């Protein structure tokens, strides 16, 4: 043990901090989160450009108008692009390496980030068709934690032309 009287001056010390906060999702995101609680993906369509957002923030970022029409989306989508995460970090809950993909749900016009499982990390492909795997009904919550992960659903890969504008 170092002699505390002769050790060098203290220049830094780690002071862990914790932040707990209440999150107020607002009307549009509440609809998305309530959908997750029921095991389904809810999006909204822009009345001007017709694009479907999931999750929707209640307005179209391109047209600036409220998105009022609710759209029930498919449980199935396409991997537009991905990376394989091999970096350990504090608070990580998934075993590395894991696949972090952009998933474009059928019927949606924006992709979101999802975990892909049930396939070796080196076999994932752009264009792969995947389906959401949900937690047990009793464990559903208004959070993306309700989606355990996505997995390949066995369909033929989507053609690059069909998703290239969603990269």
């Amino acid at each position: 043990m170092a002699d505390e009287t002769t050790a060098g001056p203290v220049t830094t010390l780690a002071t862990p901090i914790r932040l707990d906060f209440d999150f107020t999702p607002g009307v549009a995101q509440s609809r998305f989160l309530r959908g997750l609680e029921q095991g389904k993906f809810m999006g909204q369509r822009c009345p001007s450009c017709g694009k479907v957002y999931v999750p929707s923030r209640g307005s179209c970022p391109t047209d600036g108008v409220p998105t009022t029409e609710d759209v029930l989306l498919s449980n199935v989508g396409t991997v537009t692009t991905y990376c394989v995460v091999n970096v350990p970090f504090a608070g990580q809950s998934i075993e590395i390496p894991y696949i972090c993909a952009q998933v474009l749900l059928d019927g949606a016009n924006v992709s979101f980030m999802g975990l892909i499982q049930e396939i070796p990390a080196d076999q994932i492909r752009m264009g792969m068709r995947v389906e959401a795997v949900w937690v047990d009904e009793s464990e559903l919550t208004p959070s993306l934690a309700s989606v355990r992960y996505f997995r390949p659903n066995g369909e033929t890969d989507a053609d690059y032309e069909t998703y290239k504008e969603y990269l």
Partner: protein
Amino acid sequence: MAERCAVIGVGQTHHKSKRDDVSIAGLVREAAKMALADADLTWSDIDAVVIGKAPDMFEGNMMPEIYLAPALGAVGKPMFRVHTAGSVGGSTALVAAHLISSGIHKRVLTVAYEKQSDSDAMWALSVPQPFAAPLLAGAGGYFAPHIRAYMRRSGAPEYIGRMVAVKDRKNAMRNPYAHLHLPDIDMKMVEDSMMLWDPLRYLEACPSSDGAAAMVLSSEDAISGHYPPAWIHGMAMRSEPTMFAGRDQINPQAGRDCSADVYAQAGITNPREQFDCAEVYVPFSWYEPMWLENLGFCDLGDGWKLTEAGATAFDGDIPWNASGGVLSSNPIGASGMLRFLEVAMQVRGQAGEHQVDGAKLALGQAYGGGSQFFAMWVVGSEKP
């Protein structure tokens, strides 16, 4: 621009993984004192201070500009804080320049910094939110899928990223302030480094650095300093939403619009021909070919061909990141300002061993967030 504005002093710290000999205040003061000395001015000559850094959560100091005011001689003077994520160093310089071009002030000190050793950027970037899955493993995890999409779209061979990683680290050997000095860097060393976010390897990513950058900007009637001024010929900022249908993250519209604006101001119609060099925010190797296209240095899909042909190398026709760039030093908040500062050094002829011969006109670019914030300026040795 109403009033002409020029860079008359520059300063930067030696960027390192840990500056445990100074606090944040000591770090920013070090760069600021160098910039004042270069401009041949003292603290009392400065009218206002503009400061920027990446999000406060990184070091956990909320509104650090308030506590840093005494260290920067700003007590009793106007002080302005800028926030635009990773592009903030560039945006901060632009806000400072606007205070001169609008005629409000004569001399403005602008400073940007990050002390990553006091921080946990990975934690700060991975705050749990109920509408997002907890998958994001730092910035690399965000950008790697877009890099893969670029490779697919352009058909670029996979070794291009390694070429950029080697080129920028070789350039850093000429820059005494650079964080990474890797004398033995070569393609094999990059290829042998750990795969972090497939397709991105450890040596294709930027380091985590402590560091600060500072500049003194001046109006035309207040020029001073040991080197000729670097005149600002154009400056612009643009942003776009993080998410919208049809968003092109490989070639963002905000970046295209920002360069169109700054080129129009500076009379640039052919960037590859007209610029003598450029300092562009490349935190991950593949962002060089992507930004070559976004900034109009070549046609869409051809960025990687310029890199492959050596056009962007130190001895190429359009050297990019002669300083070693973000891949060699990344004090996040300061990284954008370093791009702006390095091109000022080039056109002032003060870049030492990494001086591009006869550099007269140069582009500085910074980007941030999920590729949604852009800041650019064009500086020249001649008056605009």
